[in-house]
C-alpha cells in the first residue's frame, strides 16, 4: 500500500509553545484516518503544516511523494482541505461559492453541478449561504474541497456541531469518497464515536507527539480478558477458579483474565458445562484514547 502522507520529526513552535514536537507518522493511501488528540494536541497545526499554511521549524513532510515546501504548489493541486471553519461567503449563493472557489483555485466550473448533487445541495444551490444550516455549510465546504478532484482530503472536525441527520449524511458521503472514489481522508475530530463508525485507521497525538497509531481493530484489541456466556454462571465461576483461572464478575457476568479463551472452554467442557459464547474483551476507543493521552478527547 502506498503512502499518502508522511511526517518525519516535524517541529513547530509558536513563541514558547511547542505545537509539534518531533511528530512522525504515515498515512496509507485509500483509507479514512481518524486524527485524534486532546485540545491543544497540535491537530490543526499538523494540518496547517501539511497544507503549507504554516512552516515547520524542522522536519520533513511528504504528501503523495512530494515534499511540502519546495513542492507545495504541486501538492495543493492534488489535495483538498477544510481547515478550522469552512471558508464560505455568506453573501454568495452555494453555487456562487463554488464558482468563486473554482476561479480562485484555478479550476474549471465543469464539476460544480456534479458536486452539488453529490453533497445533496442541488435544490439549495441558488440560496445565499447565510441561510444555510451548519450541516449544509459543511457539505458545501466538502464540495469546495473536492473541486479539484483531490486525491487526499484533510478535514478538520467536519462533523462538529451537526445534528444527527446531518452527521449521517456527511458520514455516508465521506465513506463513499473512500470506498467508491479511492480518496484518502484525514479527519480530525473530538468525537470518538465518529471515528469508530468511520475510520479505517487512527492516529493519536498529544502535546505535538505521536502517542499511538494503527488500525481500529489493532487499537481496540488488547484486552486480556474474555467474557464467558453460560447458562450457569455460578458453577462456571467455581469450576474456572478451581482450575486456577482469575475469575471476576457477578450474576450473569463471567470474566476470566489472562487467557485467550481456549483454556476456559476446555475446563468448562471437561466438567460438562458448554458456554454459548466466549468473547475476547475489546477496549473502546475512548479507553484507548484515555490510556495513551490521559486526557479527554
Amino acid at each position, binding site marked *: 500500500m502506498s503512502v499518502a502522507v508522511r511526517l518525519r520529526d516535524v517541529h513547530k513552535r509558536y513563541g514558547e509553545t511547542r505545537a509539534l514536537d518531533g511528530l512522525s507518522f504515515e498515512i496509507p493511501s485509500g483509507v479514512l484516518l481518524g486524527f485524534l488528540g486532546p485540545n491543544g494536541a497540535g491537530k490543526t497545526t499538523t494540518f496547517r503544516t501539511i497544507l503549507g*499554511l504554516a512552516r515547520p521549524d524542522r522536519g520533513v513532510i511528504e504528501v503523495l511523494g512530494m515534499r511540502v515546501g519546495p513542492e*507545495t*504548489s504541486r501538492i495543493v493541486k492534488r489535495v483538498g*482541505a477544510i481547515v478550522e*471553519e469552512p*471558508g464560505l461567503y455568506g453573501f*454568495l449563493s452555494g453555487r*456562487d461559492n463554488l*464558482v468563486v472557489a473554482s476561479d480562485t*483555485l484555478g479550476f474549471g466550473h465543469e464539476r460544480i453541478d456534479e458536486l452539488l448533487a453529490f453533497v445533496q445541495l442541488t435544490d439549495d444551490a441558488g440560496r445565499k449561504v447565510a441561510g444555510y444550516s451548519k450541516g449544509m455549510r459543511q457539505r458545501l465546504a466538502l464540495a469546495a474541497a473536492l473541486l479539484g478532484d483531490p486525491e487526499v482530503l484533510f478535514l478538520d472536525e467536519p462533523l462538529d456541531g451537526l445534528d444527527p441527520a446531518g452527521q449521517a449524511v456527511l458520514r455516508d458521503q465521506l465513506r463513499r469518497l473512500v470506498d467508491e472514489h479511492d480518496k484518502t481522508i484525514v479527519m480530525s475530530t473530538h468525537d470518538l464515536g465518529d471515528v469508530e463508525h468511520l475510520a479505517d485507521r487512527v492516529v493519536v497525538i498529544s502535546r505535538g507527539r505521536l502517542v499511538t497509531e494503527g488500525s481500529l481493530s489493532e487499537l481496540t484489541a488488547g484486552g486480556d480478558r474474555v467474557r464467558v456466556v453460560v447458562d450457569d454462571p455460578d458453577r462456571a465461576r467455581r469450576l474456572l477458579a478451581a482450575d486456577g483461572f482469575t475469575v471476576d464478575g457477578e450474576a450473569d457476568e463471567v470474566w476470566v483474565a489472562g487467557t485467550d479463551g481456549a483454556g476456559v472452554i476446555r475446563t468448562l467442557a471437561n466438567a460438562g458445562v458448554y458456554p454459548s459464547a466466549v468473547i475476547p474483551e475489546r477496549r473502546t476507543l475512548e479507553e484507548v484514547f484515555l490510556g495513551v493521552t490521559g486526557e479527554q478527547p
Partner: protein
Amino acid sequence: MTGLLRAEVRKLTRRKLFWVMLVILMVVMGMAAVFLLVVPARAPEAVPRMPVIRKPDAYLLGAQQAIGQSWFPIVLAAVAMGGEMRSAAFAATLTRDSRRWAHLFARLAVFAAASWSATLLAIGEWAAVTAVLASGEGAPDVDVWVGMVWKSGLVVSTWTALALAAVTLFRSLGPALGAALAFSFVDGLVSLWTAYRPVSLSTNSTAMLGELSGFASGMGFPGLDPIPPGRATVVVAAWAVGLVGVAWASLQLRDV
C-alpha cells in the same frame, strides 16, 4: 490571474458593502458640494470666513475633495480582505505559495478599481453640482480632467495598498482598519509639520491636482509652500510601491 480577478469582482459586487459605501460617499460629496460651493455664495453671513469658490477652480476642489475621501478605499479593502483573513477561505487559497503575489495583486486591482470608480462618480457628482449651482464661468481643460482621472486612480490605489498592508500585518480586521484609518488621520494632521509635509501621503495626494491658492489662504494655514504636482505624484507612487511591498512581504514571510 483572470480567474482570480473574476472571483474578486463577483465577491465585491455581490456584497452590500460596496454599494452602501457608494451611497454614503455620494451623500457626503453632495453635502460637501452644497456646503462649500453654494452656501458661501448664497448665504455668506452663515459662513463669514469661507471664501466663495468659483468656476473653474470649483471643479478642481471637487476632485480634491473626492480624492481626500481616503476612508472609502481603506474601509472597502480592509473589510473585504479582513473578512477573508478571519475565515479560512483566504488562508486556503494562499496555500499556493507561488501565487501569493497573484492573490494580493488581484485584490489590490479589484478593490482599487472599485474605489476608483466610486471616486470618479463622486467627482462627476461634484462637477454636476458645480455646473448648475456654482458661480463663475469656465471649466478645466481636457488635460486637467484626464489628470484628475488617472491621478485619482493612483491615490485610491495607494490607500487600498495601505489597507491591504495593514490587514496582512495585523491579520485581524479591527486592528487593521483602526491602524489604517488612524494613519490617514495622523498623516493629514502631521503634514502641517514642514519636515513631514513633503512626504505626507494625504497632502501629496491633493497636491497632485494643483493648489487652490485662494481657498487655502482663506481657510487658514498660510505660509505652507505648495508642492509641485509632478513631485507629489512621485511621492504618492513611492507610497504605493512601498505599501504593496509591505503587504507582499507580510504574506510571503509569515505563516498564513
